[in-house]
C-alpha cells in the first residue's frame, strides 16, 4: 500500500480506506483461488467412479475371461468352462431386430421432420419423440409384454426387439432430422434443377450427404440400447439354451450378467464380471467408432 504515494502525506482516513481495499482484494482473490481448487476437485471426484469401475472391470473381468466365454454355453455351477456364446449371439440378434424395426421408422420420420418443418404433424412428432426419449425403459418392457408377449402366450426375441426399437426410434428421428438439415440447400436445389424428382433428390442426394452423420446417430443409439436390461426382462426373457428363433425367448448379455450377478455362486459372479467387461468393451468400441465417424464426416463436410 506504500507503493501508491499521493502528493503530500496521506491522511489517516485515506490510509485506512487503502488498507481496507487492499485487504478486501486479497480476500476476494483468495476466495477465487479457493473456489478454483474446489471446482478442479469436483472434476477429479467425478472422474473417479469411472476410473474405479473400469479398473475393477478390467481386473475382475480379465481374470475370468477366456476363450470358453465366447464359445461355450452357460452351464450349471461346478461343471467348469462355461461361457455366454448364446447370450452374445442373442444380443446381436436383438440389436439387429431393433434396427430392422427402428431404423426405417426413425430415419423416415427424421426425413419428414426435416422436409416438412412447420406442419402441425412435425411439431407433434418432434415433441412426442422427446417424450418417448425420456420414458423409463422398464415401462417400454411392460408395454412390449402387454402388446406382444401376452397375446402370443410366450416370450420372444421379437418382443425384445420391439421394446429396444421403441427406445431407438426417438434418438434416430432427432439425429436424422438434424443431419438432413445440415445438408446445404444449394445441393438440394442443384439436384432439383437437374430434373431429379423430389424423392430421388431426398434419397440419392440429401440422405446420401447426411449419411455419415446418420450412421453416427445410429451407432450412438445402438451403443445405448446394447446394454439395456430392463426392457428385455419380460420380453426376450433370457434363455440358457442355444436359440436363433425370433419367436422364442432368447438370451442376452445384459440379462445374463444380471442373473449371474444376483446369484449366490462365486463362479457365476466371475462370469458376470467377464460378461460386463465384454459388454462394456462393445459399448465403448461402438461409441468411439461413432466419434470417429462424426469427426471424418465433419472434416469432409467442410470441403464441399
Amino acid at each position: 500500500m506504500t507503493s501508491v504515494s499521493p502528493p503530500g502525506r496521506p491522511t489517516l482516513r485515506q490510509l485506512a480506506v487503502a488498507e481496507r481495499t487492499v485487504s478486501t482484494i486479497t480476500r476476494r482473490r483468495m476466495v477465487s483461488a479457493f473456489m478454483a481448487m474446489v471446482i478442479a476437485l469436483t472434476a477429479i471426484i467425478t472422474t473417479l467412479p469411472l476410473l474405479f469401475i473400469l479398473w475393477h472391470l478390467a481386473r475382475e473381468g480379465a481374470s475370468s475371461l477366456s476363450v470358453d466365454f465366447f464359445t461355450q454355453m452357460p452351464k450349471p455351477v461346478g461343471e467348469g468352462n462355461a461361457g455366454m456364446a448364446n447370450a452374445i449371439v442373442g444380443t446381436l440378434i436383438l440389436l439387429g431386430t431393433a434396427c430392422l424395426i427402428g431404423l426405417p421408422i426413425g430415419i423416415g420420420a427424421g426425413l419428414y421432420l426435416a422436409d416438412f418443418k412447420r406442419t402441425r404433424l412435425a411439431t407433434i412428432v418432434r415433441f412426442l419423440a422427446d417424450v418417448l426419449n425420456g420414458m423409463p425403459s422398464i415401462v417400454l418392457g411392460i408395454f412390449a409384454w402387454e402388446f406382444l408377449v401376452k397375446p402370443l402366450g410366450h416370450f420372444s426375441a421379437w418382443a425384445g426387439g420391439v421394446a429396444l426399437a421403441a427406445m431407438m426410434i426417438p434418438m434416430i428421428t432427432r439425429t436424422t432430422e438434424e443431419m438432413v438439415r445440415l445438408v446445404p440447400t444449394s445441393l438440394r436445389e442443384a439436384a432439383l434443377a437437374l430434373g431429379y424428382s423430389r424423392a430421388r433428390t431426398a434419397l440419392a442426394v440429401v440422405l446420401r450427404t447426411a449419411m455419415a452423420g446418420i450412421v453416427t446417430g445410429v451407432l450412438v443409439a445402438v451403443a445405448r440400447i446394447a446394454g439395456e436390461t430392463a426392457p428385455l426382462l419380460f420380453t426376450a426373457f433370457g434363455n440358457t439354451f442355444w436359440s436363433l428363433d425370433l419367436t422364442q425367448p432368447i438370451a442376452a448379455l445384459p440379462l445374463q450378467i444380471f442373473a449371474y450377478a444376483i446369484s449366490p455362486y462365486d463362479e457365476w459372479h466371475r462370469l458376470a464380471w467377464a460378461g460386463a467387461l465384454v459388454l462394456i468393451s462393445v459399448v465403448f468400441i461402438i461409441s468411439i467408432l461413432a466419434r470417429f465417424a462424426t469427426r471424418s464426416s465433419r472434416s469432409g463436410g467442410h470441403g464441399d
Partner: protein
Amino acid sequence: MITEGSAASVPAAASPDRTDGRSLAERIVGSSAGDRVYVAVITGFAICVPLLLVLIFWEVAVAGWPAFREFGFGFLTSSNWDPVQHQFGAAPAIFGTIVTSLIALVIATPLALGVAVFLSDYAPAWLRQPVGFLVDLLAAIPSVVYGLWGIFVLIPVMRSSVMPFLRDTLHLGATPFFRGPAYGPSMLAAGVILAVMVLPYISAVSREVLLAVPRSQREAALALGATRWEMIQKAVLPFARSGIVGGVILGLGRALGETMAVTMLIGNRHDISASLFAPGYTMASLIANEFSEASDDLHLSALMAVGLTLLVLTLVVNGIARWLVWRVARRAGGLP
C-alpha cells in the same frame, strides 16, 4: 403440408423466410407419382412416432386400470403390498423412488455443476476434451454394469466404512435418517449409484447452458474488476440458473425411471423407513422384481398401475425440465 399449385406462382425471392429449399422444391417440381409415394411413406413413418406413444400409454393404462378401480386413490397412499391377501398399495415404492432420486440429486448436482463450470471456464484447452469425454463415458456404462459394480464394490465399502462413518464418527446416528444396522443394500446405496448415473446428464445440460451464456456477460463482469469466481457467481450462474435447474430436473427424470442398478442395490423391501440405511423399493425395481412372478391378474394389474404412475411422473418431470432449458435457450438467443 404445402399444396403445390398455390406456391407455383410466387417467385422465390418474394418469401425470404422460406429459404429451406422445401418451398423451392414445391415450386419447381411437379408432383410425380414417385414423389407422392415418397411423401406418403415418410409421412407414414412420422405418424408411427405419435402412434407408438399412444399405444404405450393405452396398453399400460388399460392393463393397470383394474388395480386403480379396485383400490382407487388408496393405491397410491396405502403401504400394504400383500399379493397373498390381494392387497396392493404402492406408497413404499413411490416413497423409495422419491428418496433415492433426491439422494442422487443432492450428491450429483454440486459435482455436476462443478464439472460443468470447470469445463466451461476453468479447464485449460488441452484438458477440456479428455475430461468431457470421461464424464460422457459415465453415461455410456450400462445400468446392469453399475449394478454389478455396486453389489461387489460399492456395497462392501458402504457397509464397512461409509455407513459406520456417517452413523458413529459424524454422530449422524442421532438423527432418524442414519439409524439402524448397516446391511449394505439400502436406499443410500441405491441413491449413491444413481448419483453417479445421473451426473453426466446434469453436467452435459449445465455445460451447454453455461456455454450459451454470452461472452459479453463474462467480459463485463471482469471489466468491472470481478475475480474469476465473482464473475461465475454473479454474472454467469444467475444467467444460466433456470437452464441448470432444467438439467437437474432432467437428471431427476432419469433417476426416477432407472431400473437395474437400483434393483440390485436397494434391498427390495416393502417398507417406509426414515433411515436411509434401510432397504426399500422403487417403482421401477418393484416391477422388475415381481413382474415375472406375478401370482394373479390383480397383482399383474397392480404392477402395471405402478408402471403407469411412473410413466406419468417422469413425463411431468421431463416436461418441466425441457420447458426450463428452452427458456434459457430463448433468452440467450434473444440477447445481442
